[in-house]
């Protein structure tokens, strides 16, 4: 029996068979896409660190066979910043859920983007807090039904990509779990980029969000992503009404900017030169 190629990089002594995510969940798909990106870039497993927070997406790092850093809810980017400063040679990949990154972790997100820390932040957006039972999150659309918006959600959601762009991220993209190939390419771009990259992945949570909003199971939700995604270039020519309830996918920003750790290391050099003179 040949094993699925993802299992080569998998820790089996962890909860679940082989993992704890629900049938049809998008998170294991993103897990494999990350593996593909690492493989296609020929990265050394021992130099790749996966960082996660708390929650379904946060658990991704605990199955990675290399070093992993399973941190606090919403705070992976803070911990990852510390790691990168102490060892800039490591490739640091943060997997965070929409709930944690845009809620409790909001400040960490905007500060890390503003500082332009060399990290890849893969944000799995399944529109709710999945692990705790499907409560609404800062990306839950208005009108949706969740365990804490059982009468219909009244809050407005964040556009995570717009937020990241405004904060100064150097590479921002959005795809869905359906768009595997462009997503893998974006992850590769993000890894190679010397700066803060944010890749939002619209993902299915069939057990909570999909069920409560009558969208369907994992497969049906992926069909829904496929049928309701519009590429950025096309979306620019469409009206607001036409774009209602659609997912705008593509790359939003791809720029170069001085990176946080590199700039700090320059200060060490600066002091060295100055003290050499005196």
């Amino acid at each position: 029996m040949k094993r699925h190629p993802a299992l080569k990089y998998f820790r089996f002594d962890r909860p679940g068979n082989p993992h704890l995510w629900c049938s049809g969940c998008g998170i294991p798909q993103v897990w494999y896409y990350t593996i593909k990106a690492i493989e296609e870039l020929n990265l050394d497993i021992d130099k790749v660190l996966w960082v996660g927070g708390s929650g379904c997406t946060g658990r991704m790092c605990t199955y990675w066979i290399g070093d992993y850093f399973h941190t606090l809810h919403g705070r992976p980017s803070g911990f990852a910043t510390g790691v990168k400063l102490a060892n800039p040679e490591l490739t640091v990949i943060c997997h965070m859920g929409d709930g944690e990154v845009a809620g409790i972790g909001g400040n960490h997100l905007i500060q890390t983007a503003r500082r332009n820390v060399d990290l890849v932040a893969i944000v799995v957006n399944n529109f709710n807090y999945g692990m705790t039972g499907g409560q609404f999150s800062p990306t839950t659309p208005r009108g949706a039904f969740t365990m804490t918006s059982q009468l219909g959600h009244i809050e407005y959601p964040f556009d995570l990509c717009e937020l990241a762009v405004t904060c100064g991220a150097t590479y921002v993209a959005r795809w869905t779990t359906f768009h595997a190939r462009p997503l893998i390419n974006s992850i590769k771009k993000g890894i190679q980029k010397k700066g803060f990259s944010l890749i939002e992945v619209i993902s299915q949570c069939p057990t909570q969000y999909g069920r409560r909003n009558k969208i369907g199971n994992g497969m049906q939700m992926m069909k829904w992503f496929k049928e309701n995604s519009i590429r950025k270039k096309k979306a620019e020519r469409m009206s607001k009404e036409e774009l209602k309830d659609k997912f705008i996918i593509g790359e939003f920003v791809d720029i170069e900017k001085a990176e946080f750790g590199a700039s700090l290391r320059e200060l060490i050099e600066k002091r060295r030169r100055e003290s050499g003179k005196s």
Partner: protein
Amino acid sequence: MKKIYVDENLCTGCGICIEFCPKEVLSYSTQRSLKGIYPARVENLEACTLCRTCELYCSAFAIAVEGEKDE
């Protein structure tokens, strides 16, 4: 030599591979697995183009494709 393996101990019958295979190679088994669901099974191996979409999308890491495109 192309071959597709479905591990019935892992497959959860989510149907994603079946739905998105561009050549309709896979279908639901008519027999329940020990997990109590109808797992995916290979219906039409001939039609497989080794695109590996099923591997990409499998959310249970239960499917594996053997064979290279240029063989």
